[in-house]
C-alpha cells in the first residue's frame, strides 16, 4: 500500500482522533498526577486543532465514505464551506476552553471523566459539521447529546441531574422529530447526500407539497430544540447554568450551533431555499424565531442569576441565526454565518468571565447574582474588560462582530416576499438589542463604576493565571476582530452564499 492510499483515512482523523484521545483518558491511571493528564489533554487537544485546521485548509471538498450501510445510505463526510467555517471556529475555541478548564476543574473534580467526554465531544462536533448526509448528521447529533450529558451532570447535585434529564428529554424529542423527516427526505429526495440547493425530486414532491412542507417544518422544529427555539427551548436555561462553566461555555457557544448547522443543512442542502421561499414554513419558522428572540431577551432581562441570564441570552441570540437563515436572502445568510462566529466567541467569553467572577474573587463570597457584582472590575480588571467587550458584541454595538452580523441580518430582512414581517423582524431585533443592553451593561457598569463611596482599601487585585487570562483575551479579541475584519470573513462565506443566486 502506498502512502496515497492512506490519505483518505488521514482525512477522518479530525473527527476520530479527539474521540479516541478522549476515550484513552478513561484508561489513564486515575490516581496519577493531574499534570500527566493535563499534558495529555492539552497536547491531544492542540493536535486535534492542528489536524482540523490542516483539514480545513488543505482538503478538497470531495466525499469521504467511511462505510456503506445500504446501497443508498452511508456514513460519509465532506469538508464543504459550511463545515470549514464551523470546524475552524470549533478548532479555535475548543483548546482555549480546555486550557481554561485546567484551572477551573481544580476546584471541581473529577477531572478525568470531564476531560474524557469534553475531548470526545470535540471530535463529535467536527463530525456534525462535516457530515455529508442526514444519516451521518443524525448519528453524530445523537452522539453529541449523549456525550455532553456527563458534562452537564458533572456536579451530580440534584439540580444538575434534573437539568440533565430535561436536556436529554428535549434533545431526544427534538431528534425524534428530525428523524421523522429523515424517512421522508429519503423517499422524496434524489440522493441522500447534502447538495447545495436541495435534494428534493420536484416531480415526486409536486403531488405532496403540503406534506413535504409539514415534514420540513417538523424537522426544523426538531433540530431547533438544540438551538433553543421556542417551544422546545425550556431545557436551555435549566441545563446550561448547572454545568461547570467551561462546559456551559461550549454548550452555549458551540453545541447550540450544532442545531443551527443541522437546520442550515435541512434548509439549504435538503429542502432547498427555492422550495421554502414564500411558503408558510418560512414565515412560521421566522415567527417562532422572532418570538424566541424577544422572549429570550426579556427573560434574561428579568433574570437575576448570572449564569441563567447568560443562558437566556443564548436562547435569544441563537434564534437570531434561525431568523436570518430563514430569510433566504444573501445578506440574511451572510448575517447568519457571521452571527454564528461572533456569538460563539462572545458567548464563550461571557461564560468564561462569569466563571472567573463566580469562583475566583478573593472576597470569599461566591457571586451568583447579577446585582452582587459592584466593584468586581476593580478586583478583576482583565476579566471584566473581556466581559465588557463580549457584552458589546452580544448587544451588537460597533465595531464588534455582533454589530456587523446584525446589520447583515436586518438588511436581509427587507425582502419583498416577507413584506411587513421583515420590517417587524428588524423592530424585534432592535427591541432585543435594547433588552440585551439592559441586562448586560448594568453588570459592566456596576463592576467598573462602583460609586465614589466604594471602599478601595479592600480591593485585592486577583492575579489571573495565564491559563484563564489568555482564553478570555483571545475570545474577546475574536469578538472584536470578527467585526473589524468582517469583509475578509464574509468573502470566505461566498461559496455557500452562492446557493442563493
Amino acid at each position, binding site marked *: 500500500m502506498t502512502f496515497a492510499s492512506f490519505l483518505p483515512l488521514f482525512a477522518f482523523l479530525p473527527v476520530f482522533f479527539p474521540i479516541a484521545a478522549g476515550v484513552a483518558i478513561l484508561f489513564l491511571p486515575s490516581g496519577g498526577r493531574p499534570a500527566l493528564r493535563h499534558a495529555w489533554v492539552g497536547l491531544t487537544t492542540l493536535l486535534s486543532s492542528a489536524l482540523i485546521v490542516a483539514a480545513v485548509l488543505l482538503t478538497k471538498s470531495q466525499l469521504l465514505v467511511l462505510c456503506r450501510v445500504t446501497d443508498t445510505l452511508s456514513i460519509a463526510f465532506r469538508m464543504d464551506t459550511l463545515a470549514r467555517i464551523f470546524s475552524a471556529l470549533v478548532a479555535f475555541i475548543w483548546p482555549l476552553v480546555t486550557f481554561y478548564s485546567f484551572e477551573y476543574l481544580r476546584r471541581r473534580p473529577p477531572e478525568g471523566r470531564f476531560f474524557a467526554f469534553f475531548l470526545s465531544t470535540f471530535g463529535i462536533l467536527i463530525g456534525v459539521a462535516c457530515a455529508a448526509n442526514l444519516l451521518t448528521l443524525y448519528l453524530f447529533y445523537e452522539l453529541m447529546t449523549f456525550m455532553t450529558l456527563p458534562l452537564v451532570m458533572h456536579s451530580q447535585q440534584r439540580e444538575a441531574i434534573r437539568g440533565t434529564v430535561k436536556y436529554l*428529554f428535549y434533545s431526544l*424529542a427534538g431528534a425524534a422529530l428530525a428523524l421523522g423527516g429523515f424517512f421522508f427526505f429519503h423517499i422524496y429526495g434524489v440522493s441522500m447526500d447534502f447538495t447545495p440547493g436541495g435534494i428534493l425530486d420536484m416531480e415526486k414532491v409536486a403531488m405532496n407539497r403540503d406534506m413535504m412542507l409539514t415534514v420540513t417544518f417538523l424537522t426544523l422544529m426538531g433540530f431547533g430544540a438544540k438551538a433553543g427555539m421556542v417551544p422546545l427551548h425550556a431545557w436551555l436555561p435549566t441545563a446550561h447554568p448547572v454545568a461547570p462553566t467551561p462546559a456551559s461555555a461550549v454548550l452555549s457557544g458551540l453545541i447550540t450551533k450544532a442545531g443551527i448547522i443541522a437546520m442550515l443543512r435541512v434548509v439549504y442542502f435538503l429542502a432547498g431555499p427555492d422550495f421554502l421561499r414564500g411558503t408558510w414554513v418560512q414565515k412560521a419558522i421566522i415567527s417562532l424565531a422572532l418570538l424566541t428572540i*424577544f422572549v429570550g431577551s426579556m427573560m434574561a432581562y428579568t433574570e437575576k442569576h448570572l449564569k441563567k441570564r447568560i443562558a437566556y441570552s443564548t436562547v435569544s441570540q441563537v434564534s437570531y441565526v434561525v431568523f436570518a437563515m430563514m430569510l433566504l436572502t444573501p445578506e440574511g445568510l451572510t448575517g447568519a454565518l457571521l452571527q454564528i462566529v461572533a456569538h460563539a466567541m462572545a458567548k464563550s467569553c461571557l461564560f468564561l468571565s462569569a466563571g472567573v467572577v463566580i469562583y475566583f474573587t478573593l472576597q470569599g463570597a461566591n457571586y451568583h447574582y447579577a446585582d452582587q457584582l459592584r466593584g468586581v472590575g476593580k478586583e478583576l480588571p482583565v476579566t471584566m474588560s473581556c466581559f465588557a467587550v463580549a457584552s458589546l458584541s452580544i448587544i451588537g454595538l460597533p465595531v464588534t462582530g455582533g454589530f456587523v452580523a446584525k446589520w447583515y441580518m436586518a*438588511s436581509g430582512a427587507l425582502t419583498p416576499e416577507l413584506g411587513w414581517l421583515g420590517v417587524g423582524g428588524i423592530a424585534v431585533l432592535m427591541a432585543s438589542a435594547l433588552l440585551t*443592553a439592559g441586562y448586560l451593561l448594568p453588570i459592566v457598569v456596576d463592576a467598573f463604576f462602583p460609586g465614589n463611596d466604594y471602599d478601595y482599601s479592600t480591593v485585592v487585585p486577583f492575579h489571573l493565571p495565564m491559563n484563564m487570562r489568555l482564553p478570555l483575551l483571545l475570545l474577546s479579541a475574536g469578538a472584536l476582530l470578527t467585526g*473589524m*475584519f*468582517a469583509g475578509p470573513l464574509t*468573502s470566505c462565506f461566498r461559496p455557500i452564499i452562492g446557493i442563493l443566486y
Partner: protein
Amino acid sequence: MTGNPLLLFLVLWPMAGGILSFIAGRLNRRLRDISAGTVTLVELAAALHCRGLLGAKLSLDGVCGLGLTLTLDGFRLIYAAIIAFMWAATTLFSPEYLDHHRNRNRYYLFVLMTEGAIMGVFLSADLYTTFVFFEMMSLFSYIMVVQDETPAALRAAQTYLAIAIIGGLSTLMGLLLLNHQLGTLVTADLAAAAAAVKDRGALYVSGGLVLSGFAAKAAIFPAHIWLPTAHTAAPAPSSALLSGLLTKSGLFGVLALSAGPFLHDARWGLALLALALVTMALGAVLAVFSVNIKRTLACSSMSQLGFILTGIAMQCFLGADTGGAGGPFRPELQFGDLAVRGTILYMVGHSLIKLVLFLAAGVVHMNTHELGLNEIRGFGRDKPLFLFAFLMGGLGLMGMPLWNGYLGKTLVHEAIVEHIHHIGRAGAGALGFLMTPSSERLLFQAAEWTFLVSGALTTAYVLKLLVVLFVARPAPGLHQKGRYISPLSAAVLALSAAVLPLLGCLPHVLADPIAFLGASFMNGPAKHHAVSYFSLSSLEGAAISLGLGLLIYLFVVRTVLMRKDAAGEPVCVDLWPGWLDLEHLAFRPLIAGLLPALGGAFAKGVDRAASILIRVLPFLGALAARAIDLVCAGPITLVLSHAARIRFIRPPEDQEFGIYQEEEGGPMVRALLPSSLAYSLATFALGLLFILAYLIQF
C-alpha cells in the same frame, strides 16, 4: 485601504495615544499628563496640516462588513480643526482640574478614544461610517460623564447611556430602511437618490428614525433629558467637550439628512422647526431657573442647539422657496445662503464659547468644590483673567455685536426674516400644502418672536451668572487669596477666550472664509458673496434681544428668582418644582417600568405555555399507552396470576428519572399517569408516527 492615510491617522492616532497614555499612567502620573497633552497637540498639528488636503478621500474596504469611507471637505476640515483644538485645550487644562481625582488613567484613555471616534464621525463620507463612529463615541463618552462616580453622576450617566443606546438603535433601524429605499448611504449621493424616490412617506419614516438618534445626541426635545444632568455631573473639561462638540456630532447627522434626502424639503423643515423652537425656549427657561453654574451652562447648550436647529430648518424653507420639495434642484439660486452661513457660524461659535465657559466653571469648581450659585457667590472678584474669560464667553453667548456669537445668531434671524419676505411672493408659500400664505406668515412671525425671546432669556441668565460671580460680595468661607489657577491652565483659558472677540470683530476676515468653506456640505451656494453683518436691520434684532433680556433680568430674575439675604446680598432661589421633570414623569416610568413589565409578562406567558405544551404531549401519549397496557396486558396478568400464582410487583416509579414533571411532593395519580421517560418517549414517537401515517394517507 485606498486614499490618503492622513485621514485614518486623524482617527486612529488619538485612540492609540489613549492606550499609550494609559500605559504611561501605570508607570508615572507626570508622564501620562505629558503623553496625553502631546497626543492632542500632535493631533492638532495633523488636523491643521490637512487644510491643504481638501477633497481627500479614504476607503477601508471590508472593515466592519460594508467598509468605512472617510473624506475631507470644508465643513469637515473646520470641525476636525475645532475638535483637535478643543481637545488639546481641555487636555492641557485637565491635569490641574483632575488633581486629587481617582481613576485618571481611565479618564484619559476614554477621553482620547472619544476624540478619535468623534473625528471619525465628522470625517465620515457615508452614514454607515458615521453611525459606526457615532456609536463608539457614545460609548466612550459614557466614561467622561460617569468619571466622578458620585450618585448624581452615576444616575446621569445611566440616563446618558440609555438615551444613547435607544437613539442608536432607532437610528440603526432608520439607516437600514434608508439604505433599502435609496440604495446608498454615501452622504454626497443621498440628495440625488432621494429625488428619484416616489414614496416620500416611507422616506419620512426612515428619515425620522435616523433623525431620532442624532437628535438625541444633539439634545433636541424631547430627548434632551440627559443633557442637563450629564453636563453638570461630568468633570468640567469633559463638559466643555460634551457640550461644545459631542452635541455637534448629533447635528452633523441632522445636517447630513437635511442636506441629503430632505434637501429643501419644507415638510421636513417644519418638523425640525417645531422641535427647534421648543428646545430653544425650554432650554433657555430651564437655564434662567437654574441655581447651579454648570447646570445653567448645560441648559444653555440645549437652548443654543435649538437655535442652531432653527438655522437648519430655515435651510429647508429657504431652499423650498426656490424650488420646493421634489422640484428641480437649482444650486445657482442663493436663497439658502443666509441659513447655511448662519448654521455654520452658530455651530462654530457655540463650540468655542462653551469651551471657554465650561473651563471657567471648572476653575470655579476646582477652587471651591462647589457649583451652586449661592455657594460660589462673588468668586470672580479680583480675578482679572477669570473675569476676562467669563465675560468674553458670556458676551459671545448673549449675541453681543462684536463677539462671535452675534454672527451666527443674526444670520439665522435674518434667514427667518428673509423667508417671511418670500411667503406669498410666488403664489403659495413653502408650506402651501398645509396652510395659506397669511397663516404661514403668522407662523413664522411667531417663530421669529420665539427666537428673539429665547435670545432675551439667554441675556438674562448670562447676566444672572455675571452678577453672581463678579458683582455680589463673596460668600462666607470662599477661597479668595493666593494662586487659583496654574500658568498652563491660565494660558489655555486666556487663549480660548481671546478667540471669541477676534472672530466677532473681524467677520469678513475670519468668519466669512469659515462659512464659505463649510457651505458646500450643506449644498450652500457655490458663489461667495458678501454679507453685511452690522447692517441696521441686523443690529435691530440683537438690540431687541439684549434689551428685552435686560428687562427680563431686572423685572423677573431679580424680583422672582433672587431674594436679598440679611446682609443685602442677592440669593438665588430654586423655584423650579422638583416633580416637573420629563425624565421622572415619563421616560423612566415608561422605559424602566411599564414596558419591561408588559414585555416580561408576555415572555413569561410564552415560556409557560411552551413548557405546558411539552408536558401535555407525553402525558397524552402515556395515557394512551396505559390504556393499551391495561387492555392487552391486563387479562394476561390476571390469567397468569390466577393460574400460576405468580405475584407481579410493579416497580416504584423512579422519582429522579421522571423529574421533568416538576411537581414536588403532593399526591400523584401514579397508577394512570406515569412520569417515566421511556413511556413518554415511546408513546411520543408513536403519536408522531400516527400523524405521519395520517399525512401520507391523505
